[in-house]
């Protein structure tokens, strides 16, 4: 049981680290959104694991459900922003989004 729980949490930490790394490395806004989705998934897995092995019942599950919902709403808005940026600036490269700099 310890191994199973630890494997799940290992996956969660892997996804979290991966999400961070993707946000660091990638320069496209869509790729950064991918990183954000990974972070949210890491959180959801953690909730679900503790729900299964520590708490029980439905609380963690409901949290994961709401995380999925928030991720979907966030993805919709971010991707709309991506389209808008592409229409105005012809690029989705983060290094070009520097109008507020200085």
């Amino acid at each position, binding site marked *: 049981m310890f191994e199973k729980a630890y494997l799940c949490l290992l996956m969660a930490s892997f996804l979290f680290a991966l999400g961070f790394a993707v946000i660091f490395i990638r320069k496209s806004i869509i790729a950064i959104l991918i990183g954000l989705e990974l972070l949210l998934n890491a959180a959801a897995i953690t909730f679900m694991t503790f729900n299964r092995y520590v708490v029980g019942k439905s609380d963690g599950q409901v949290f994961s*459900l709401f995380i*999925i*919902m928030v991720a*979907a*709403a966030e*993805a*919709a808005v971010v*991707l*709309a922003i991506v*389209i808008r940026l592409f*229409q105005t600036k012809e690029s989705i490269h983060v290094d070009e989004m520097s109008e507020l700099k200085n």
Partner: protein
Amino acid sequence: MNAAVSSSVTSPSLHVLTPLIVFMVIAVLLFGGALLVAYLISPKAPSRQKSMIYECGEIPVGTAWSMFNVRFYVIGLVFIVFDVETALLIPVASVYRTLVAEGQGLYVFIILISFMAVIIEGLAYLWKKGDLDWVKSYKK
């Protein structure tokens, strides 16, 4: 013997998950096998003309990976919100009938209505603003 079989086989996750996994594996293996057979017996005579992209017999111009119209995209946005809405409504809908039988129907009904009214309002807004139209919103 049978008792042992049925007792071990009826553990819930076993009955539930195994067929799903088996079918997924079979989907890949069976049709991958069909592709493999086709690969083994089919003739191989590649040529430049054959592996050219079909463009009605002309030599293809440019790439197809270019900008695409944003109309497809707004549809996708509306879809994803509705998708999540159904995902949230399904657990509530599945207990609706038992709660009605228990006499709490009106309470659940009001909750359902108020949840759906907000989403219907969003749909109505998009409708009025012409985001659901395929052509009109570009005429202006």
